[in-house]
């Protein structure tokens, strides 16, 4: 923890300004009320106050290194008293010494000065006390800030862990049913079986790899999603149709890895799994100035009561977007006229 005054230029200026104001007040008082000449008044004010100002900086150290929280109150108080007496003693000796030497001819003033030493010492003790209190306040608020920072860091760690968990959820139904399809294809169509194994491997590797890389180009993300859809298409044949349209500008856009996977999975689960008729899944991407807008839609039969509860996958995606883009992105969905649509806005400028 750095010194609250000398730690930054701004606090040095503020601290000096406060002492200047005090000096000025004292000077005005001495000059107009007690009628001492300007030179005497200015010297007295500046020397006594700035000496105190400088020595007062030292009061920080007992506050910092002998805090109440760590030591018995008696020990801390004694430490402050001893330090305070030292500071006061040095201050009084220096001030009185310097002023006596500077104005040896002004007997009137010197009498006043030497008569008020006790008062000055008491006033100094008071100011010293105020300083110590201020230092304690500053230390505490710094500690609080540091704790808040630590909490924030912790939260972001937890967030990261949560994200990893959300991302790594590959549906075991998908995995084992795909393997079963491959087993079947090895007999009827070995070439297609090999293709499917490669696609499945690419997709699984991608879903493992993304733990390290937070962002990939939309092109790569969609490439893996196409693998995913192609695998599902082997299982469901003509029942599953899909179209993915993106232009060059969209291809390069970075997106969080596996962000679309739960959406395609949902689309398949709620449409293809539940339907006996062909369904189409569409993906489009439209860039504009502020956002990259993606739309995933799928047909569904609104009359068929859903087997699975809806929303977990969608909530996860929304959470990832909100956490990842600090509430600047958005995820919206609606089911209307037999088409379910999910809109995502990715902010284009994001630091």
């Amino acid at each position, binding site marked *: 923890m750095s010194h609250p005054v000398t730690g930054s230029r701004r606090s040095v200026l503020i601290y000096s300004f406060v002492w200047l104001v005090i000096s000025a007040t004292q000077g005005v008082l001495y000059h107009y009320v007690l009628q001492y000449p300007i030179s005497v008044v200015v010297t007295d004010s500046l020397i006594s106050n700035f000496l105190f100002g400088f020595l007062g900086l030292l009061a920080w150290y007992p506050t910092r290194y002998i805090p109440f929280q760590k030591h018995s109150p008696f020990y801390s108080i004694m430490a402050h008293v001893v330090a305070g007496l030292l500071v006061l003693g040095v201050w009084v000796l220096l001030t009185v010494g310097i002023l006596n030497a500077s104005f040896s001819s002004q007997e009137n003033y010197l009498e006043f000065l030497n008569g008020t030493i006790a008062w000055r010492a008491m006033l100094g003790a008071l100011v010293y006390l105020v300083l110590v209190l201020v230092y304690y306040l500053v230390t505490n608020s710094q500690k609080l800030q540091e704790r808040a920072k630590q909490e924030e860091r912790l939260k972001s760690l937890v967030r990261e862990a949560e994200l990893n968990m959300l991302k790594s959820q590959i549906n*075991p139904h998908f995995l084992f049913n795909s393997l*079963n399809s491959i087993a*079947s294809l090895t*007999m009827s169509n070995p070439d297609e079986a090999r293709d499917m194994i490669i696609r499945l491997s690419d997709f699984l590797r991608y879903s493992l790899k993304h733990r390290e890389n937070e962002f990939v180009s939309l092109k790569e993300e969609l490439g893996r999603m196409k693998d995913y859809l192609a695998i599902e298409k082997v*299982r469901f044949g003509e029942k599953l149709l899909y179209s993915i349209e993106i232009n060059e500008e969209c291809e390069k856009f970075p997106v969080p890895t596996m962000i679309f996977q739960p959406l395609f999975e949902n689309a398949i689960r709620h449409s293809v799994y539940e339907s006996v008729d062909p369904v189409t899944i569409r993906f489009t991407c439209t860039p504009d100035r502020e956002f990259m807008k993606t739309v995933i839609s799928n047909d569904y039969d609104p009359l068929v*009561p859903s087997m699975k*509860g809806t929303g977990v996958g969608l909530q996860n995606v929304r959470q990832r977007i909100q956490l990842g883009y600090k509430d600047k992105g958005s995820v919206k969905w609606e089911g209307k006229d037999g088409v379910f649509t999910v809109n995502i806005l990715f902010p284009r400028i994001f630091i």
Partner: protein
Amino acid sequence: MSQIRIMIVEDERPARDLLRTYLGAHSELEIIGEYDNGFDGLKAINELKPDAIFLDVQMPKLTGFEMLEVLEHQPEVIFTTAYDQFAIRAFERNAVDYLLKPFSKDRFRGAISKLMSRMESKSEEGGEESSIEKIRQHLAQSDEKLHRVVIKKSGKIHVISTSDINYLEAQDDYVMIYTNEGRFLKQQTMKYFEEHLDSQQFVRVHRSYIANVTCIERIEPYEKSNFILILKDGNKVPVSRSGMQVLKENLDF
């Protein structure tokens, strides 16, 4: 011994292909039909009465389990499933066998020989109780929440979304389910529905009644210390004192 008549109910073509290929090696088995969804499978099973079925669990329209709930003819069942921890326990105890996809030829042969010995002991002892009832009972213990209910009414199969249910009423061994499209009788216990319906939405307001709280229009005092619910469709549902307590907690008033 005559041929065993087999039916395949499975929604994925490659999975059906695989089963058919494996079955080709067993001349004692005859495939009498293949269906790609629970609805068609259910109809065909009731009509053609196969000896045994290969049944996928996850299927469109009607899942394998929902199909079992409303099946009239009860064949032997060999489940084929990808991943379903709870159901596997049900199969272990009660089904002829279950095949975890993907499965080998040897594993398949094992299931067939289990089926054969079951069929033999069945024809010797005569009329052994079907295993389907036991599977049903076991599945009813699952703690998974209910999203839809399958009901057979005058020969037709109705699939009702739980959110369309207004209230349920106990009727001896059955439960009457009231919806805007009419009422449906289901052989099931109130306890089952109390445990498996979403407890945010459904409250056991009375020993004999469960109400969908989103359908409540207002609550009126009734007789001494009892209350009665007036539903949006005009129906009235009695509330017991303990039911009122649960309702208060649920609706936060």
